[in-house]
């Protein structure tokens, strides 16, 4: 009788263990089923009359998702130590399973004229979904006379 009970308890534990493990694996796969990539094709800097202008193009991002995800993305221009300009935060909820691409974004920012010197100009595309993120950047170095 005791051996029977022990055996029953053993299989009960084993079954419970497997069941919980399955739930965990499912949750793990679900939470890791989101992949994001972002890129920026190019950035340019030029003085335009009383202003300086930074122009970037090819802001692209991709999200692969196997469940409904909320995607946050935005563009940024930065000149380290001088200033930065972010676009508005853009948010979209993608349902179910799939791959979504945001392509061909562009941004033009306007700056008070920079003092003569060397500068690094960066343009970034940033994307975030399910706490997974990526930033793709284009960088140029410019000398302003």
């Amino acid at each position: 009788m005791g051996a029977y009970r022990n055996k029953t308890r053993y299989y009960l534990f084993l079954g419970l263990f497997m069941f919980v493990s399955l739930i965990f694996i499912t949750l793990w796969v679900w939470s890791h089923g989101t992949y994001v990539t972002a890129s920026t094709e190019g950035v340019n800097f030029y003085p335009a009359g009383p202003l300086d202008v930074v122009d970037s193009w090819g802001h692209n991002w991709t999200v692969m998702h196997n469940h409904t995800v909320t995607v946050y993305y935005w563009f940024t221009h930065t000149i380290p130590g001088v200033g930065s300009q972010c676009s508005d935060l853009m948010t979209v909820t993608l349902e179910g399973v799939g791959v979504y691409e945001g392509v061909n974004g562009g941004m033009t920012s306007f700056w008070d004229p920079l003092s003569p010197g060397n500068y690094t100009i960066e343009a970034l595309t940033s994307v975030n979904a399910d706490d997974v993120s990526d930033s793709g950047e284009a960088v140029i170095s410019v000398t302003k006379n």
Partner: protein
Amino acid sequence: MRRYVILTAAFLIVVGLNIVGYYYVSKPKPVQNFQAHLDIEREDIGLLNEPIDDLRAEPVQEDQTKDQTPSFESQVRAEESDRMTSGSISFHPVEDKGISEESAQEQAANATFDEGESAESPKQFVTVTVGGRELRLERGKKYLIIGAKWNPNPRPYTPEEAKRHIELCRKLRDPNLSGEELLKLREELEALGPGLALGAVWSTYLWFPLPGQEEPPDSEAIVIDLRDF
């Protein structure tokens, strides 16, 4: 007996990992204040009534023969408008303009229509939020969304701010940032101020394909103009 101890320990570990896993997938996403209602006007691009007069930049205008010198913003706007080839829709927050009784009734009617529509085909539309404004985009159509932001108080960074800014820019390029960290960095950059940046105009294409649909050309995109000037 040892077998039970091992199994129990394994069970507790799995339960613990489950809790961690559940926390990971269900933790709250950053909350945005995105509930602004929209007054949708189907008209071509036009300047808003409120001028932005605190930009430091002088108007970029060389032609002195015109009666009125366009503002810097309108110059930028006109330049960007040249790129648009299809009909545009301007979106302005309701609270900026006030709501008349008739427009409120009209909105109520639209809301009823939307509810009915979404009840019939809930996946026909995708809601996109851009800087606090909700847009309902139809699947299968391509959209070009244009936005702008102007900084009221551009100023050079202090040495300490410049140092912090360089550090933040370096962090921004870190490929191992989590989504939450990336959003926090963005917030910190915004809090630090724009430095010498006066503002920007940006555009993005959005297209939510129907099954088997080929991507429409960019020239067919419906322009949604969110620039508030």
